[in-house]
């Protein structure tokens, strides 16, 4: 026995039953959600007589749900670590208020307001992270307090009512698009094609690295099937959007966030620590994870993303109101759980949370097109959340011993 990295043994079993196959088992849950999204899309496509996937509607779908998706990305990290954040809706309101005031009253340029919003979000996150991580108050309580506190502050800041007339470049963050080049829009198609190429190249590079290091590689069938599904999805959305108003700016921001945060959770020490703490907090502590600091940064990060969501939703609305962001926290939490995260923590992915958010978004959109009453929309969303988590629980029970 040595403590240096030992030479890999040539165990034939290891080579033939690769880890990827077992990974696939875990991924099945994510695929389940993806399948659910597809079913819902197809269902509403039929029910709305094809109107759901009108280019304009796809554009709307993305712009209207951007805030949930941004919040869900932060929330999935919070939930994987075993916490919850109830304050993000109120943070969106207070950040929106500050952004609007800074531009209208203080004359800050639009980019200054964006930076300020994100900084304010980070400070709010640090405030909540301090209480959770270093004082040891459960996140449920800290963020419930935050929900009241920041909603109150938003009301204080916006005593004058609505602030509107925000600068055009700011508003473009929420509802703007890149300029169009023809019909269909060649820029949109070009970006989609580039994204597809990058996906294929990255996957091939990873596979080549595994081959080189003599690691088990995924079976070609499932490897290529996944790539083809991803490419088809990207190109189809690109195709739809190319007949709309051009590539939404917010889509680029979202794509960047998904890529960056997937990387953080899957590849970095920080991400691993988050999963380790959610899986077994004590074991993580006894393995030398600085759990307090990890908790702190999780909330700072949530604050930053809530700040960004504040920018996006204010920009989309074109004005700041104190009631902005109401129940956003519940949408984000629902998206995360629909996306397969575990209530006890330790399980969840960024992609799952985004798909969960899209499930809710498509439901909203489809039901709205069908002119279903808003009250019923809410009731249906509640049932979908319950069904998604019930499906997850039941499938786990059947699969496990």
């Amino acid at each position, binding site marked *: 026995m040595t403590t240096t990295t030992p030479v890999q043994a040539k165990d034939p079993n290891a080579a033939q*039953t690769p880890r990827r196959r077992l990974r696939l088992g875990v991924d099945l849950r994510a695929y389940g959600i993806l399948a659910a999204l597809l079913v819902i899309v197809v269902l509403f496509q039929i029910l709305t007589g094809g109107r759901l996937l009108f280019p304009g509607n796809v554009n709307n779908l993305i712009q209207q749900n951007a805030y949930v998706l941004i919040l869900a990305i932060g929330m999935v990290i919070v939930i994987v670590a075993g916490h919850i954040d109830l304050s993000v809706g109120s943070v969106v309101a207070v950040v929106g208020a500050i952004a609007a005031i800074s531009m209208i009253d203080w004359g800050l340029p639009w980019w200054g307001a964006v930076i300020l919003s994100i900084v304010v979000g980070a400070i709010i996150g640090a405030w909540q992270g301090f209480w959770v991580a270093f004082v040891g108050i459960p996140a449920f309580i800290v963020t419930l307090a935050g929900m009241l506190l920041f909603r109150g502050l938003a009301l204080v800041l916006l005593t004058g009512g609505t602030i509107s007339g925000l600068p055009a470049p700011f508003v473009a963050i929420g509802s703007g698009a890149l300029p169009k080049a023809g019909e269909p829009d060649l820029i949109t198609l070009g970006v989609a094609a580039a994204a597809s190429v990058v996906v294929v190249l990255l996957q091939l590079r990873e596979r080549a690295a595994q081959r080189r290091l003599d690691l088990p590689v995924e079976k070609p069938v499932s490897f290529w099937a996944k790539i083809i599904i991803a490419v088809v999805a990207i190109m189809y959305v690109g195709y739809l959007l190319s007949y709309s108003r051009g590539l939404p700016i917010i889509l680029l921001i979202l794509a960047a966030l998904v890529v960056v945060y997937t990387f953080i959770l899957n*590849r970095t*020490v920080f991400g691993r620590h988050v999963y*380790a703490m959610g*899986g077994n907090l004590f*074991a993580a502590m*006894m393995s*030398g994870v*600085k759990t307090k600091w990890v908790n702190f940064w999780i909330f700072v990060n949530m604050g930053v993303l809530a700040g960004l969501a504040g920018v996006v939703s204010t920009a989309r609305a074109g004005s700041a109101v104190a009631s902005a962001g109401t129940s956003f926290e519940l949408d984000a939490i629902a998206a995360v759980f629909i996306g397969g995260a575990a209530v006890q923590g330790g399980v969840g992915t960024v992609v799952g949370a985004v798909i969960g958010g899209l499930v809710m978004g498509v439901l909203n959109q489809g039901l709205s097109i069908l002119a279903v009453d808003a009250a019923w929309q809410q009731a249906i969303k509640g049932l979908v959340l319950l069904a998604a988590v019930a499906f997850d629980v039941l499938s786990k029970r059947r699969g496990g*011993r």
Partner: protein
Amino acid sequence: MSDDDVILRMRDITKDFSGVKALDGVSIEVRRGEVHAICGENGAGKSTLMKVLSGVYPHGTFGGTIEFDGHEAAYRSINDSEHDGIVIIHQELALSPYLSIAENIYLGNEIQKNGVIDWNKTNREAALLMERVGLNENPATKIHDIGVGKQQLVEIAKALSKEVKLLILDEPTAALNDEDSEHLLGLIDNLRKQGITAIIISHKLKEIRRIADTVTIIRDGKTIETFSMKGPDATEGRIIRSMVGRPLDNLFPPREPRIGEEKFRVEGWTVHHPVHPERKVIDNASFTVRAGEIVGFAGLMGAGRTELAMSIFGRSYGTDISGRLYKDGKEITARTVDEAIRNGLAYATEDRKRYGLNLIGDITVNVSAAALAKLAKRGVIDRNREYKVADSYRTQMNIKAPTVAAITGKLSGGNQQKVVLSKWIYSGPDVLILDEPTRGIDVGAKYEIYGIINALAAEGKAVIVISSELPELLGLADRIYTISEGRITGEVPREEATQEKLMHYMTAGKD
């Protein structure tokens, strides 16, 4: 044997989990009024067999037949089997900590009228049951406030309240000290006299010798043999041979100690209780460990063994800690777990499920958990290398799992322990503190773990082994410290160590 004598007959039980046969034609007959021991290595199928019997796996999900008390049994749930008088007491006790003893005894089976509990009767009946199991406590005491040995008795009282015919005890003494174990075994003996049949699953051969009438040995999901413990050839050696399928002449692998310079020294270590800071949990403890040396720590439960280890390892236990640590003659500090690891300390916990493993994580993430820094560049983990590291440990530590993507929570205790050891060995420590490294582990895996411990010492590491099994310390350690009531009460070199001598120091109270 006539048919009335047999209370339970399980025939050709097979059970598979997605193609993997956990039970492959197990048959067992238990006679009325006997204590029947089931032995087998971890993963042999003992627990699965008991789950089949008690209806955790409902009738129809396994093959074979079960006859209980003269009729064919087809249990669909635990309630069905309990209705017939079969009660299982699991290794992990299932009591509600903030309810009283009496409430726990009658939990789910309350003495009531129209949904209103009759507290007087509950407490009176509970007191009678408690007397029967020799539990001298107030029925209103909370479970939380009594020790694990007494909690075990509460479980048995609870079983008696249900008019149990067949009592199944899964590793009943795993978490108990010698005194509590002895009491429990005495109680099982008593219950046998009252006509209650018991099945006891145990790794402790002495215990089986002491209590069992008959023993059945299971290996790889098959019944190997059943024999009476009364016969002249019913030896521990025979049990071990049948369990592991090979003769185990010696429980400990051979080793030639090559002991070097002093590696680690603790001086004047004092620790106060985290909740009651006026109480000293560790009182001025000093000890040394040399390179290549295996040092044992013996102490009764509650003596402060784990507290000593955890307080040294990054102050994970206690408040107001004072004392000095030296490695290779130089003073070091270990104020946080992270600092302790960086200074070359490792602590493998006695409670691997709570403190040792991310049970929902796979083998890979557990093996790398304490040494991610080695695998990461600028905060980004090289996952391919991580996989290779984990896979090499799987091979060299003989962790029985198809791949390192196996979830640790589904491994057997012995394999989980190997994952914990892999984690700490990979962290590259100079000083390893192993707290109960073989708790709840079968004989075969124990032997392997002893081999790992020996190899670590042979590499020149300082190894500290904390164990409540004295024979283990005697077989393993070069030197043994005894600890009692937070103080180090003795230091015995291997040559002079006997169980009696150690026990003498371990029970040396404050004057």
